[in-house]
């Protein structure tokens, strides 16, 4: 096990190292049985741990919420992952094998996510899982991936503070997304005071914590910090507070159904974001969310993330065209959808570099892996399993798309345990 690539001995890494031997022994037995069964010598070479790999196919899992409250957000990820798998198959698959996917529904319920991930790993023996969206669902499945040594490609931008050898994080961690955004808004727009607002759970809270630390480091002021329960639909009181405190920037990390309510009520209360007084900067509203909010309600807001559908590079143009050809011309692609699309390609690249489907070998091959065909441009896997990526600022148009108004020059190093921000 390559523990050295991890900073210190992370809690989760430690866990796995201390898992009793009983299981490894069983795995060996499975492998032996599989190779003896003679599903092809070829299969055995690339697969020594009994994964669901035959001479012509390899099974992977897709684990998202197709039902429940999170289905709103996760649908895009499912579509992106299916598209990537189809494209890879059309190119001849991975190591000459077609990818077959097993889709499971996490039903927006964290114990269900845990149950289904176990089913995928233990019963279906999938070679990799693309899935999860909320932090809570990832936290629920993480011990299972570590216990059964699975590989999860997790697409969402998230709060950081985590690093598991069984997860590749294809979205941005909080510092990548936040710091560049705040720097930009202070430098270009001269913002001096911020109002932090979020839904009440770990991602907005941690993100706002990082944002607050950074704002205070810059010597600027946070004039308010507020959290509302998930699913809250009435924001008139907080909008009044915003009007009272007159911040330069509203820093919004509202999610889900609350998002729609918040932006609609903000506009109705006479806060016109196109006037940028105050300016609105969000890290939670992708093109996917604007679909529900309505472009006219979002017009003029800024978003700080790594991908926008309107990115002008050639990779992205092809990706957007393919995505629309597959899922209909009206679909939109948000940051997470693109990150989900990367998952399957990164896995393919790692498998081909390792020459094997074995999770340990795939993991060993992952750090340093580059993808030049990514819609967001060039990405590279950091040894801490996050991606190097650029952060962009989008300016919302009335048609629900963002204009990219800024892009960091360099790739930003992922830093899930940022010193000085905890």
């Amino acid at each position, binding site marked *: 096990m390559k523990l050295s690539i991890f900073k210190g001995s992370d*809690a989760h890494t430690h866990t796995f190292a201390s898992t009793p031997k009983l299981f490894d022994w069983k795995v060996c037995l499975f492998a032996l049985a599989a190779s003896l069964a003679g599903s092809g010598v070829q299969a055995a070479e690339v697969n020594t741990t009994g994964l669901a790999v035959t001479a012509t196919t390899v099974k992977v899992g897709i684990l998202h919420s197709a039902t429940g409250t999170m289905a709103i957000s996760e649908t895009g990820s499912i579509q992106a992952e299916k598209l990537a798998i189809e494209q890879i198959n059309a190119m001849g698959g991975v190591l000459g094998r077609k990818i077959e996917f097993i889709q499971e529904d996490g039903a927006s319920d*964290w*114990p269900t996510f845990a149950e289904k991930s176990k089913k995928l790993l233990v019963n279906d023996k999938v070679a990799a899982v693309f899935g999860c969206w909320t932090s809570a669902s990832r*936290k629920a499945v993480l011990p299972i991936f570590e216990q059964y040594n699975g590989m999860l490609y997790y697409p969402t931008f998230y709060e950081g503070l985590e690093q598991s050898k069984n997860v590749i994080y294809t979205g941005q961690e909080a510092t990548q997304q936040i710091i560049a955004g705040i720097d930009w808004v202070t430098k270009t727009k001269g913002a001096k005071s911020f109002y932090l607002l979020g839904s009440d759970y770990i991602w907005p809270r941690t993100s706002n914590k990082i944002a607050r630390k950074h704002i205070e480091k810059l010597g600027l002021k946070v004039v308010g910090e507020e959290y509302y*329960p998930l699913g809250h639909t009435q924001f008139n009181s907080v909008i009044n507070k915003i009007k009272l405190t007159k911040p330069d920037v509203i820093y919004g990390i509202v999610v889900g159904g609350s998002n729609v309510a918040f932006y609609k009520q903000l506009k109705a209360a006479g806060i016109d974001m196109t006037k940028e007084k105050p300016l609105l900067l969000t890290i939670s509203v992708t093109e996917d969310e604007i679909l529900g909010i309505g472009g006219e309600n979002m017009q003029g807001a800024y978003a700080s993330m790594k991908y926008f559908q309107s990115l002008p590079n050639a990779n992205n143009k092809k990706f957007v065209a393919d995505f629309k050809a597959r899922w209909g011309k009206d679909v939109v692609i948000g940051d997470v959808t693109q990150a989900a699309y990367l998952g399957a390609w990164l896995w393919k690249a790692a498998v081909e570099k390792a020459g094997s489907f074995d999770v340990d070998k795939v993991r060993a091959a992952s750090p340093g892996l580059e993808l030049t065909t990514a819609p967001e441009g060039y990405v590279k896997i950091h040894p801490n399993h996050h991606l190097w990526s650029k952060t962009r600022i989008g300016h919302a148009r009335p048609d629900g798309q963002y204009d990219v108004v800024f892009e960091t020059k360099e790739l930003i190093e992922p830093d899930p345990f940022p010193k000085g921000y905890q």
Partner: protein
Amino acid sequence: MSYQGLASLLPKKEIFGFLVLGLLLVLVLPLTLDIFRLNLIGKYLTYAFVAIGLVLCWGYGGILSLGQGVFFGLGGYLMAMFLKLEASDPITTKIQSTPGIPDFMDWNQITALPFFWKPFYSLPFTLAAIIVVPGIIAYVVGAAMFKRRVGGVYFAIITQAVAAILTILIIGQQGYTGGVNGMTDLRTLQGWDIRTDQAKYILYFFCVFMLFICLLVAQFIRKSKLGRLLVAMREKEDRVRFSGYDVSSFKIFVFCAAAVFAAIGGALFTLQVGFMSPTLVGIVPSIEMVIFCAVGGRMSIIGAVYGALLVNWSKSILSENFPELWLFALGGLFIAVVMAFPDGLAGLYTTYVAPRFKIWFAAIKNVGKTKLEVNAEQQNTHTKQREENQIATEKPKPMKVTITDIPQQNIPSITQGALHE
């Protein structure tokens, strides 16, 4: 307990139901299912604890609680607090800014273990708390409401509000509770790794054992005078009150009992699943738990176990095979149960299966006595019954209990209140 006492607790025709259930859970399922599925069954069984409590509370007492998730969650969270402390020893958490406290506290800038977490280093305290804390909360809620004669729909909705409050509190106070993520990554119980396959087997059997203890307690309540009083109260509360009984304390007792059952289920859930999450506390899971009870048959404690198993099993299987459509099936099941089979599986058993059994047993006796007297007609039912019986053994149906004594349309009279009378 004397033999007679035992006999009255478990009459012959009911002992059969316990035996079949025991056989199924102890022998059939462990032998036929792999550990992954068996662990799932174990998880479903933890919901059965709640359903058994609801049979007493709702089926017998006529008190519909839509907040059982609160007690299930409390039990689960209390257990999780102990396990989380054990999983957060200073060595494994040394990368945190404050080693030795649970990771989510560290993420929320809490630098010392809060005082109310400290007792949870002790296992006996934790186990006691799992019984006592939900009991006390149920007592407070129950006493406040039943003493003031709140019942029926009002009680249901107030408990729903309690469930909503607890969920928002847990999610909002994430520094102390783990927030929306819940308490994850629980590993050992007093040094014993609860994640291995072997541990999963042991926990499963422990869960079955606890389930039978709860079943017996419930059976005792049901068969005692208290059980009959509960039914009487449900039917005509005022008459029981006029007879000199303190109606509210019976209600409080049965509500507390249901709460404690739910909490035990919650604690076992945490042990088997390895984490606890606020999604099990809120309104939706609370309603689902009522539905397990309704599917099983609201008057049958054994039916409740089958109800929990059947609904969850079909949920798992349907969502594996029809990820886009399973909600239709589930919703349809709920409507069908309420509309067509108000007594659930237990009702189906008494109406369709049990009479056949009777004929069959009678036929066997007849065969034993005078083989020649068995006429063609009887033989006909005999073979028919055999087929029926084969089906029945494939999926054993629960025993049916006292429902036949009670005219159906009277069941909710207590809840109707001013609305229809």
